[in-house]
């Protein structure tokens, strides 16, 4: 049984369920990640040193350059992507990259999603209903 549900304005990709990794910070595959090791690498990022692999990343805004549109596809080929992406504000690059890599993404909520979902929470994303379902709180 879900704890709470949140509607997004934008959604794409298949339905997924997993553990959330959350920060009130931005996201760019080029600026923020060591894509070889699968960790956040920008020293000033709030998730620096943490592994993003197979996590549902819940972040504030898509940032930075256009490289992410290719990089998500390249990371997917090596099994080194997050399970899904969730943003308060998204940019076209992230949508284009998620579309090419066939990942899942939700964006645009009435409230700050990074203050609602905590790291470690069990989350389900249902893009065809534009829905984020909080299944279990962080342990």
């Amino acid at each position, binding site marked *: 049984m879900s704890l709470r549900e949140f509607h997004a304005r*934008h959604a794409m990709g298949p339905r997924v369920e997993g553990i959330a990794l959350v920060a009130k910070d931005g996201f760019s595959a*080029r*600026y923020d*990640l060591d894509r070889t090791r699968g960790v956040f690498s920008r020293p000033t990022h709030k998730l620096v040193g943490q592994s993003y692999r197979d996590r549902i990343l819940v972040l504030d805004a898509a940032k930075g350059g256009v490289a992410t549109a290719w990089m998500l596809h390249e990371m997917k080929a090596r099994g080194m992507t997050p399970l899904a992406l969730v943003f308060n504000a998204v940019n*076209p690059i992230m*949508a*284009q990259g998620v579309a090419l890599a066939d990942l899942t993404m939700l964006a645009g909520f009435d409230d700050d999603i990074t203050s609602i979902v905590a790291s470690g929470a069990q989350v389900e994303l249902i893009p065809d209903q534009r829905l984020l379902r909080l299944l279990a709180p962080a342990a």
Partner: protein
Amino acid sequence: MLAGEMGPVRQLALQHQIKVGEFFDAPDFVPVSQAHIMADTESLGEAGVAWLERLASHSVTERHVCIPTITDPRGTDFCKAAFLKQAPWMLDLERRAIDAFVKLGVLMTDTCINYQTVQAPTRGEHLAFGDTGVVIYSNSVCGARSNFEGGPSALSAGLTGRTPRYGYHLDRHRQATLHVRTDWTPATLNEWGALGGVIGRLAGNYWSVPVIEGIERVPGSDALKHFGAAMASFGSVALFHIVGVTPEAGRLQDVAPASAGIRAVRVGRADAYALQSTYRVDEKIDVVVFSGPQLSLLELASLAQLCDGRRFTIPVLAVTSPQIKPDADRMLLTERIERAGGTVLAGMCFYQSYAREIAQANGWKRLMTNSAKMVNILGGYGYQPMLASMEECVDAACVEVV
């Protein structure tokens, strides 16, 4: 096209565009006159290059782009790859990507300053441009209309001749959402970049449109290039207005009607220098890089003048476009920079050229540059970047300290 009657390549391109368009609730498509593709092989990887090669394996009729389609910088300057200590596999991947793009009918311009070197967009022209610096300059300074189009989407636009109509193709998204007042007009390119970075951070996301009031002199193209590139880099911003300078903001009320009630902030010299000082964590430097965006002919001329009579003790890299390099050679700007110990590279961009690997191969960590965009990017690649003026960078390259 969607039914596959024009071949599987255009069908795939249109399917991709529909997926993105539906995500942003685009009502239809808009014809575009040009596409610009960001596709360095560090971003593409083996998977991306193989994807391009699959598209390029179809017949000429099926695979050729149908509008002028040009490229952002490559991941190397083949003439200088040994100097950069790039590995053979990087160059092999580059050659395969270039071969695929040529088969797709793409013009290999390899530049992120196409608005200075290839063709400046015109006001109201709908485009599918990649490279955030190219988009923000085209939208803001030229009054053209483009979203950030990543490589797959820009190539798709080249193949279909259109792009989903959302974001900055629409009038309603071009109005200001943030009113920035300043009492400071930057003088140097790093100052313009730092101010752009401050405003980018304040704007915060792609859908924010800052309007800046209080700039007292009309900035030149290179100043606005650094200003916009930094704003796009720090904030993912794709459009700004400067009252009395940029074409859509002759008056403040043209882009920010009084009724709009938008957020107002005040920024100045102290904010820009505070941003710059956050990157000053070491006195020593290993390498100086002028890149991101590529240097215009006028920037190279300024650099050449500063290099006269100097002798660098650490590497100094100046990166420009393939359109400008022959002029720089002909006018002896390259010779003057290289006589001091610098290296002029063309057709690449430093941070798009396996920045992490070349740092490890060359022992480069403490990097000095006059590009605010570069300092924002390179931290994630393991560098300790520092922002300073072109003059300070040249001075530091002679003594290895700031």
